[in-house]
């Protein structure tokens, strides 16, 4: 077991079962997926109540919680799926990117299972998971553009073919979800505040128009730190004048700016690369404003759009199985010496 990569041929006409583990941040999740697409179980244990007290995710506590729940969640997922452990054909796990101490727990549990059951291990990229969550709900047509928006990531990914990832745009500072949480804090919402901002923006009747950060004309990159500062400056300006800042108008202004830029760039990428499909994914895909705008832009451009349901957008293990399936079908397995990676290249993870 010294080779970095073992390649074997897997018969494709037989049913197979992947058990996947995801512990990259504050969710402990285990899923059992048949034939890469049929979700038999997808158990998610969120630590959000624990981290709320601290106003954000505390890495050391996240790791401790993963250890506490790991085998419980594995057992629940297996039981709910109604499979025998002996029927599991491979173990998939989020290898990175993420919080290193959190990833380690999942990686060690996955390796232990792979050894105990004597089945292959598939180290999986978290973002590939978010993207391939779409494969659990529909057929992906290539080339496709994936817009990945989450607490830790904001990326536009081009998939020229199945399992071939090319990042064409990424955030230069905060991720969208991060910007939402920071603005939420300024608007006095408790952690995690993203959904509150979305709701407030939806209900707003006024809008404080805020700048759009388009960067260089040909760039697909993002920057949200200036926008966040603009929100804070606006709050200060009102207070200096002895006025009460209009939080809902600000939430709307912030949300409109984010949506304009994010969807605008995604659509431009779809046109430039001749995408036959748009994939929206990541935790922020739950944002109603974003879903609605992207839907109408895609319709206008004639590009079909896939958006997984919320449970498959936020961190979950079924999406990890869906991405690991790319490697399973090609017999590309990881060694038992695989390491968790806090930073990990999506492009290099391509099949």
């Amino acid at each position, binding site marked *: 077991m010294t080779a970095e990569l073992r390649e074997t041929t897997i018969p494709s006409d037989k049913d197979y079962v992947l058990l996947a583990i995801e512990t990259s941040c504050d969710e402990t999740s285990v899923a059992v997926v048949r034939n890469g697409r049929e979700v038999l179980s997808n158990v998610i244990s969120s630590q959000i109540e624990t981290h709320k007290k601290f106003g954000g995710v505390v890495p050391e506590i996240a790791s401790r919680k993963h*250890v506490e729940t790991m*085998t419980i969640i594995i057992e629940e997922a297996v039981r709910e799926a109604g499979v025998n452990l002996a029927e599991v054909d491979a173990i998939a796990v989020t290898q990175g990117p993420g919080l290193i*101490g959190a990833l380690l727990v999942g990686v*060690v549990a996955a390796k232990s299972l792979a*050894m105990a059951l004597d089945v292959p291990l598939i180290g999986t990229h978290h973002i590939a998971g978010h993207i391939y969550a779409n494969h659990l709900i529909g057929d992906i047509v290539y080339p496709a553009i994936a817009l990945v928006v989450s607490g830790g990531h904001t990326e536009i990914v081009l998939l020229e073919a199945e399992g071939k990832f090319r990042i064409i745009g990424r955030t230069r500072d905060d991720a969208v979800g991060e910007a939402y949480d920071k603005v939420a804090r300024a608007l006095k919402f408790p952690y995690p505040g993203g959904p509150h901002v979305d709701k407030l923006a939806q209900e707003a009747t006024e809008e404080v128009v805020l700048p759009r950060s388009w960067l260089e004309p040909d760039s697909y990159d993002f920057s949200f730190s200036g926008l966040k500062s603009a929100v804070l400056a606006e709050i200060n300006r009102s207070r200096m004048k002895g006025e009460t800042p209009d939080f809902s108008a600000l939430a709307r202004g912030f949300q409109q700016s984010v949506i304009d830029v994010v969807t605008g760039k995604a659509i431009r990428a779809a046109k430039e690369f001749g995408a036959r499909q748009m994939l929206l994914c990541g935790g922020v895909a739950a944002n109603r404003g974003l879903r609605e705008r992207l839907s109408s832009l895609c319709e206008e451009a004639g590009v079909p759009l896939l958006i997984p349901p919320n449970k498959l957008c936020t961190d979950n293990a079924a999406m990890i199985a869906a991405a690991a399936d790319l490697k399973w079908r090609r017999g590309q397995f990881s060694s*038992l010496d695989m390491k968790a990676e806090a930073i990990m290249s999506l492009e290099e993870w391509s099949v």
Partner: protein
Amino acid sequence: MRIDEELIDDSGTVTVLAFDTSTAAFSAAIVRNGERVDSVVSFAERNHSARIISEIKELIERNGLQAQDLDAIAVGQGPGSYTGVRIAVTAAKTLAWAWNKPLIGVSSLEALALGAWHELRPENEDLADDLDVWIIPVMDARRGQVYTSRHAANHSGGWRTVDGDGIRLIADWAARIEDEGTQESQVAAIWFVGDIELHCAAIEQAEQSGTRLRTYACNLNAGAIGLLAELRFRQGEKDDVHSFVPNYTQLAEAEAKLLAASRGE
């Protein structure tokens, strides 16, 4: 508790897979009937998570064993490096669950102490049977602190824990051990063992009355984890796989701060 061969021979063959990652060493062992059959200690990887499962697999295979030959999975529960302890504990929980084997956690400190005693015992052979030797395991916990405990051993196989696992200031702890050791006449020798290099000066400083405090640098060997676990196993004890967690001996920093804030400190 007595660590004697007789107790071990009484109730049939027991084979334990034991491992620990609470310190800079990764250690795994197969223990059968109180004997270390085979073991591995490695410092090669700073990151124990990389090699742990391959090493365990290799150890099991080169001894011609299969899962069905193992009676229990034993693991060092800490204290020690937070990340380190989590690695072995996660592996032990998952293996015990997947193989449906009893899980037995033992104190990594006690194992460090017992392993040291086994090495020191021949040198202390001239001690009378009714005299105690105190074994004080230490693992560095930064800022002058150590993870430590106190165990009393004797030549008739006696082994008991005097003070349980905790995080303590080495200067205060060594002074207290010195003081109490001076007062108790049946204590023949006191050994600070383990990660002592950083703490030698503090231990020497505590020395008031002569040469009673001695030091012995050594690493944790999973053989001692296996032995302690085998004894628990033979007494019918085991841990609950799902609720088993590392013994960190202290709150995470963020929790400690929150607690202090809630008390208005």
